[in-house]
C-alpha cells in the first residue's frame, strides 16, 4: 500500500489519470473496430514529429524562465529555413540540412533578442512570452506576403507572389529524416526510425549539455538565483543562453515536424503550436520550475497517444467527434494544473 501511495505521489494524479485513460482507450479500441497496430504506429509517428518541440521547453524551464509559450518564435525561424530550402530547390537529406542551416542562425538571433527581452521582465516571463509568440506570428503573416519568394510551388498562382498558406514538401524532402532506416511490419505498422534516432541524438546532446559547466550553472540560476549570483554566475547570460537554445530547438523541431507531416503551414499555422508542446511536457511530470528529458519522452507519448486515440475510438463509440473538445480540455487543464500547483517542500 505504501509503495502504491509513494508511486502516486511521485507520478502525480493527473499523469496517472491520463495514463489510465490512454490505456483504457487502447483496450477498448479493438472492440469498436479500431486497429491497434495502426493506432500504435500513428502514435509513434506523432511522437517523433513533436518530440523535438517538446524538448525545446526544457532549457528555459531549467534556467527559471518558465514555460516557453514563445515557441512560435523558434518555429518562425524554422519556417524561414524550410521555405528558403524549397526556394533553392534542394532535395532529400541535403534539403533538410539546408533548411536547418538557414534556420539555426535566424533562431540564434531571434532567441538572443527574445532572451534580452525576457531578462528585463523577470517574474512575468510566461505572459510576455505568450504575447511575443502571438505578435511575432502576426508580424510574419505580413512578411509571408511581402518576402521575395518566387518558387512556383510556393507562391499563389494568380498573383505570382506571396506565399501560400500551406506548402507541400512532397518532391523535396518529404520524410527525408523519417525514412532513414525506417521499416514497415505488415500493411499498417510503420516505424520512422530516422526520426527517433534524430530525436535521441538531440536528447543525448541535451543530457550532456546539462552536465557541462554551462548546464550546471544554468540549473543553479533556475533553482536559486541568489546563490548563483554569489557564486559568480552571470545570471542574465545564462538565461539568454537557455532562451537561445530553446528557440533553436523550436526551429529544428518544426522542420522535423514538417518533413514528416509533408506540409509547411504558414500564416496563422504556428499560432497555437506552443500549447500542445507545453502541455505535453507538463503531462510528462514537469512543473514550472523543473523539467527533465524523461518528462519530455513520457509526456510526448501520453499526449500524442491521446490525440491519436480519442478521435478514432470515441468516434466509433458514440458516433460524434469530440476529440477537439477533449484536446482543448486536457491540454489547457494540464497547464492550469501546473500553474496553480503550490510547491510543497518535502520533509
Amino acid at each position: 500500500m505504501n509503495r502504491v501511495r509513494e508511486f502516486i505521489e511521485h507520478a502525480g494524479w493527473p499523469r496517472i489519470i491520463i495514463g489510465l485513460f490512454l490505456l483504457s482507450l487502447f483496450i477498448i479500441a479493438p472492440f469498436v473496430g479500431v486497429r491497434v497496430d495502426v493506432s500504435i504506429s500513428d502514435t509513434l509517428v506523432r511522437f517523433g514529429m513533436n518530440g523535438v518541440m517538446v524538448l525545446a521547453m526544457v532549457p528555459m524551464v531549467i534556467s527559471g524562465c518558465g514555460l516557453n509559450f514563445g515557441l512560435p518564435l523558434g518555429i518562425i525561424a524554422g519556417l524561414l529555413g524550410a521555405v528558403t530550402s524549397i526556394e533553392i530547390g534542394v532535395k532529400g537529406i541535403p534539403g533538410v540540412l539546408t533548411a536547418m542551416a538557414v534556420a539555426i542562425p535566424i533562431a540564434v538571433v531571434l532567441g538572443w533578442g527574445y532572451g534580452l527581452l525576457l531578462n528585463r521582465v523577470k517574474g512575468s516571463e510566461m505572459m510576455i512570452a505568450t504575447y511575443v509568440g502571438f505578435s511575432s506570428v502576426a508580424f510574419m503573416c505580413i512578411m509571408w506576403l511581402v518576402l521575395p519568394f518566387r518558387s512556383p510551388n510556393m507562391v499563389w498562382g494568380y498573383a505570382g507572389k506571396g506565399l501560400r498558406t500551406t506548402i507541400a514538401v512532397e518532391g523535396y524532402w518529404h520524410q527525408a529524416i523519417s525514412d532513414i532506416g525506417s521499416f514497415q511490419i505488415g500493411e499498417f505498422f510503420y516505424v520512422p526510425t530516422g526520426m527517433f534516432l534524430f530525436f535521441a541524438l538531440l536528447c543525448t546532446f541535451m543530457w550532456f549539455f546539462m552536465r557541462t559547466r554551462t548546464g550546471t550553472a544554468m540549473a543553479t540560476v533556475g533553482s536559486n538565483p541568489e546563490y548563483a549570483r554569489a557564486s559568480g554566475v552571470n545570471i542574465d547570460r545564462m538565461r539568454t543562453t537557455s532562451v537561445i537554445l530553446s528557440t533553436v530547438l523550436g526551429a529544428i523541431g518544426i522542420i522535423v515536424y514538417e518533413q514528416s507531416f509533408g506540409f509547411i503551414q504558414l500564416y496563422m499555422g504556428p499560432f497555437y503550436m506552443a500549447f500542445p508542446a507545453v502541455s505535453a511536457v507538463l503531462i510528462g511530470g514537469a512543473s514550472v520550475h523543473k523539467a527533465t528529458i524523461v518528462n519530455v519522452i513520457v509526456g510526448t507519448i501520453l499526449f500524442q497517444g491521446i490525440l491519436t486515440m480519442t478521435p478514432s475510438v470515441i468516434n466509433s463509440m458514440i458516433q460524434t467527434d469530440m476529440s477537439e473538445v477533449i484536446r482543448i480540455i486536457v491540454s489547457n487543464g494540464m497547464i492550469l494544473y501546473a500553474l496553480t500547483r503550490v510547491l510543497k517542500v518535502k520533509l
Partner: protein
Amino acid sequence: MNRKYDYFKHLLVQNAVPIVFLAVSAFAIPISQFSGTYLVQEMLVRLSRNSFLVLSLLIPILAGMGLNFGMVLGAMAGQIGLIFITDWNIVGVHGMLLAAIISTPLAILLGWMCGLILNRAKGREMVTSFILGFFMNGVYQLVVLYGFGSVVPVTNPKMVLSRGFGIRNVTNLEGIRKCLDNLLPVSVAGVDIPVATFLVIAFFCLFVVWFRKTKLGQDMRAVGQDMDVARDAGIPVERTRLISIIISTVLACYGQIIFLQNIGTMNTYNSHEQAGMFAIASLLVGGASVSRASIFNVFLGVVLFHLMLVVSPMAGKYLIGEAQLGEYFRVFVSYGIISLALVLHAWRRQKEKDRARRSLRGIQAE
C-alpha cells in the same frame, strides 16, 4: 529647464502607447478616404458596443490582479443566457433583461471558480486567467456543442445542428437586435446616437467611481498595493480578490450581452474569444497599464483602437494595393500592443525593484 524637460519626457513615456496610436491614425485616416461623418458614426457605435466590456476590466486592476483575461468566462455566461432567450423567443429589452437574469448566477459561479484558481496562482494571475479562458472554452464547447439539445432542452429546431443536438455556429439574435440602442432614438446631423446604451454605460461609470470610495473598494486598493501589508491590517485578502473577480465576471457577462445586441448575430463558438482580446487591447491602447487604469483610459482606448481597426484595412488597400495586408496589420497591432504594454509594465516594475535594492545597499538611487 532640465526639470521641465524631465517632466515632458516622463509624460511622453507614460503615454507612449496612445501617442503612437494617435500618430498612426493621423497618418492613416486621410489615406483610407473615409468621410468624417462615417467615422464619427462608427466610433459612436463602437463606443456603445465595447465600452461596457472594457469597463469590466477595471476592478481586478484595482485589486492588483492585472488584466483579467478570465473575463471571457463572463462572456460565455452571457452567451448562454442569450441562447436561452433566443430559443424561448423572448424579444426586445425584456429578452435582454431575462438573458442578464439567467446568466448572472452562472457568471457568479464562474467568477467564483476563477477567483479561487487565481488565489492559488498569486503573482501569475494573468497567465493563469489566460489559460483558464482557453480551458473554459473547451468546457463551453462541450456544454453547448454536445449538451444543448440532448441534456438541456432546446425547442427551436432552427438553432440546433442537423444531427439533433448542439447549437449551430451562428445564432441569430434578430429578436433583440439593437433593442437597447434604439430604445431612445436620437439623431444629430445624420449621426444616430444610441442614448440608452450610453446611459447604461454612464450609470456603470458612476458605479465604479462610487465603488472605489466604499470600504470594499479601499480594501481592494490596499490589497493591490501590497498583499502582506493588507493582511496585517486585517483585510481578508483572498476574499477581497475573489469578490473583485466575481464583479468583473458578472460585468463582462452584461457587457457581452450589450455587445451582441448591437451586432445582432452571435458566433456561438468564437464571439467570447474575441471579446477578451479586443477589450484588453483597447484598455491598454488608452494608456492604462497592468496596475493602473481609469475610466478615461477606457473611452480613449476604445476610440483609438477601433479607429485603427476601421481604418487600417482600407489604408492598407490604398497604400499597398492589398486589403489582406491591412487585415494582418491589424491583427499584428492588437497583439503587438498588448505585448508592448506588458513588457513596459514588467520592465518598470523590475527597475523599481533594482532601485529599492540599490538604496538598501546604501548607494544613492538615481
